[in-house]
Every structure is written in C-alpha cells, then in structure tokens.
C-alpha cells in the first residue's frame, strides 16, 4: 500500500472535523448553561418501580456498584445511587450499599448523606447501611450474598462495572425473590444480567441514565454531540449504500464506477 494511507486524507479531515465540531459545540453550549434535552430511558422507570416495590413490602433495597473504583463508571454509578436514595428516603425505605473500593466508599457515604439531607430527613441516614466489605472480588461477592439473605432484600440494583461476580449476585437475588435491575457498560456481563434480571440497562444507556439523573453539563453535551456524530455515520453509510446499489444495477455507467472507486479509496476495505 502506498505511504499516503498512513496519514489523514481529505475525507478524514472532513468527517473527523464534523464529529469534533458537534461534540465540542454541544459540550461548550451545555456548559454555558443551555438546557439540552435527553430522553428518559425506560430502564429508569424500572428503577423507580423497584424502589416502589421495596416500599410496599417494607423491606430494604440493595444498591451494589460492582467492583467500580473512582473512575468514570464508578462516579456515574454514584449519580444513580443519589437518585435511588432520595426516592427511598421519601418513603422511609432503607438502601444498603456494599462497596468494594475504599475510595468509592467515602464518596458513597457522602452521596447518601447528601441525599437524605436534600429530602429533609437527615436523621434517617444510617451510616451502617453504607458498608465497605472487601476489595477482593469473591470475598466482596460473598459478603453481598450474605446481605441479600439476611436482610431479605426486596429489590436489588446492580449499577457499575461488573466482572464474573455478577453471576453470583444475580443468582442469589433470584433465590430470595428480589426484583433485580442492572446496568453496566461491561459487554461480557450484560448477557448474564439480561438472563437473570427483571430489567437491564445496556451499553451506552448506562451513561445516558446517569447523565439524565445528574444533569452534569459536560456529560449531557457530550451525549447530544455523540448522537449527531452517529447521524453523520449513518448518513455516510446510507449514501454509500445507494451509490453501490446504483453501480450494481448499472455496472456500465462510467461516472458511477468512478464514484464508487473514490468511495472505496477513502473508506478502504482490505
């Protein structure tokens, strides 16, 4: 292949500038205070139902952020935790939060306390309900299993980064008959949650859910910008498909052949 393919072609400049422009434009305008719209995703209603059911039964809720640490996934899980605790605080339902990361533990404690304060019931906050169990994967998992059984949890919410322990938790949640709602960007765990939970928030929905709840401008702007970027990609694909179909239908038209050759040059197929 020629040396040229190692560097940006004009097509790269056009497409990538367009994407960068959309993303930065939306992030910056969101940060300047413009209200951006994101739709409410269906998984959030399932979350509210789970809180409602625990209230009806008078049993606690379990909110497990997986093995997430203080990273983007972990922090977004805290945004969802804040929402759940506020809802539950309103009805006086307990939320038990077992953690596997000592740093995230301090953050979760703050988040829970703030949520009770925001609902005007600071006295209902029980520091015992936010627990650091262990930073070892299976020790953490067996700790959570213990909580599921002892506390007779009515709703189990799994939001964060999960590894193989997802299976152990979902199995035991099923055994105690809890309503289970999960959300994780970990692709390999999504199928297992889908198979064992009542509702699962999949892939990018996880980021959308937390941006929707936290209203953090950078996240919102970035999501909206990404949507525009995906539209650009769909547009390119549809135009390309039309060109290639036209060329396949009329293989002898010169300009169509030139057009498809140009497309193949800029969007190379090995």
């Amino acid at each position: 292949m020629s040396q040229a393919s190692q560097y940006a072609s004009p097509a790269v400049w056009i497409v990538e500038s367009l994407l960068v422009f959309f993303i930065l434009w939306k992030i910056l305008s969101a940060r300047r205070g413009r209200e951006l719209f994101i739709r409410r995703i269906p998984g959030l209603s399932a979350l509210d139902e789970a809180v409602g059911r625990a209230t009806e039964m008078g049993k606690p809720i379990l909110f497990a952020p997986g093995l997430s640490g203080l990273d983007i996934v972990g922090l977004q899980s805290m945004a969802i935790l804040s929402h759940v605790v506020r809802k539950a605080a309103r009805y006086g339902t307990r939320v038990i939060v077992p953690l596997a990361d000592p740093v995230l533990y301090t953050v979760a404690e703050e988040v829970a306390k703030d949520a009770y304060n925001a609902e005007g019931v600071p006295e209902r906050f029980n520091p015992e309900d936010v627990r650091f169990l262990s930073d070892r994967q299976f020790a953490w998992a067996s700790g959570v299993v213990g909580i599921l059984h002892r506390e007779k949890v009515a709703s189990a919410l799994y939001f964060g980064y999960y590894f193989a322990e997802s299976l152990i938790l979902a199995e035991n949640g099923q055994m105690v008959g809890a309503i289970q709602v999960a959300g994780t960007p970990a692709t390999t765990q999504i199928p297992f949650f889908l198979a064992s939970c009542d509702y699962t928030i999949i892939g990018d929905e996880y980021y959308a859910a937390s941006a929707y709840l936290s209203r953090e401008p950078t996240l919102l702007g970035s999501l909206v910008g990404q949507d525009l970027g995906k539209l650009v990609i769909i547009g390119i694909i549809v135009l390309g498909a039309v060109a290639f179909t036209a060329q396949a239908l009329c293989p002898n038209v010169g300009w169509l052949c030139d057009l498809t050759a140009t497309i193949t040059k800029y969007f190379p197929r090995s």
Partner: protein
Amino acid sequence: MSSVWNWIAIPRHGWQFAVFLCGALVIGCAVLMLLTSTPPRYRKTIVAAVTFLAGLYYALEFLIPPALWPLKPPRNPLSEVQPLVATLTQIIWSFALLLGVWNLFLIHGRAVAKHGRGWYNSAAFFISFFAILGAGLLKDYAKNAGLSKASESIFTVLFSGFLTSLDATMFSLIAFYIVSAAYRAFRVKSLEAALMMAAAAIIMLALVPVGAEITNWLPQAGLLSALRVERIGYWLLTSPNMAAQRAIAFGIAVGSLAMGLRIWLSLERGNFFDRQL
C-alpha cells in the same frame, strides 16, 4: 542548537560518566523540587498543558501528511521519532509497574505490624514475594554454580507449580458460577430474554463439534441443509450478530472520540476532576 544536542548525546565513560550522571540527577531533582513548590493555582494548567502537548504529538503525526511539512524530501518529522518515543515510554512505563507492589507492601505491612486477624496471610504474601524474586535474581546473577542451579529449580517450582496453577484456577472458578446460575438464575421472564437464550443455545451448539452431529440426519447440501444447527448458528454469528456488533462498535467509536476529546482538552468535570490539586 544541534551542536548542543550532539554534545549531550555523546556517551561518557570513567569519571566523566560519574560527573554527567550526578549532574543529570541534580538537575532532575531540581525540576521535581520546582514542581512540588508550584503554587496550587498553576497546577491544573500545567497538567492540562502536558496532557494537551502529549496528545498533540500523535494528533499531528497523523493529521498532517508529509507533503504539508516544509521539508525536503517530504516527510513527517514526527513519524521519524516514533521508535524513540516507543523506547522512552516503555522504560518510563515500566517504572510505574512497581506502583502496585508499593501499594501491596503498605497494606500487608500494616496487617503484619498490627498482628490483627489473618496477619499470617499477609506474612505469606511477603514470604512468597521475596522467595520468587530472590530465586529469580539468584538464578541469573549468582556466581556459584550450585546456588544458581538450586535457585533455578526453586524458581521453576514456584512459577510453574504454584503461580501458573493459582492464576489458572482462579480464572476457572467462573465456570462453576455459570453452572449454578444456569440452573437457578437464567429465567426466561420476558420475550427478549427468550430470544437471547434461544440465540445463545443455537450458537453454543454450532460452535462445538457435537452441533454438527445433532443434525447429521439432514443432508449436507440443498435447501434442507440450511436447517443444520451449525449452519444456522454460523449464520447467526456472521450476519445478525455481525450487524448488531457493528452498531455497538459505531457507538463506541463516537463515544471514544468524545471521551478522548474530553481528556485531551481537559474538559472532564465532576467531583474527582474538580478537586483542588
């Protein structure tokens, strides 16, 4: 300019080496001292600038084709130094590998010192750490042939006996959890779960040799052969699955571009990133 550079690049030997090495160390430490005493309000700017400049290197290396550089013959000078960047980052990065070790030393050192519950586990950590490190270094550097040979045997036992078995067994635990979850947790509660499990079952059979045996009564060619499990499973993998995975991949493509921009331009917000440095 280039003569200064050449002067720096010359290898030194004997007393000159010692002088240059010490000089470089002093300069390095001075820079570090300067960094530690930077007033807090400039710190974020410095981190943002370093991040931006580092990103700029690879960005320009790709975005500006050789023809646009004012150089003869046309070339991208940033591409030329890539092997050097590779070596440098590799060595600096390997210093970071000891970070995790330092962390473990802190945790287990504290546990041993406190003599609390399970302190002997932490002691076992230290013993095994130094045993394999010592055996490894002795087998490479010991002058005494007997000692080096014995260390090599101990090293092999620790490595292929304990370490590889422990690692592999830890990973394989998940298989058991899948088994009990398959029985107790995977419930077809909704149509979408049913669809997923059906696709999974067909693909699981198609991947393994027994899949081909199950529908062996169907012909190998012709219209009916399309119903063979391995054909359906392979079609599911290469057609609908491929399309769904590509849709996810495009989402990741745009998502990682957005994430990259947020990091590169230090746009990320949230309590972690806003903390005072």
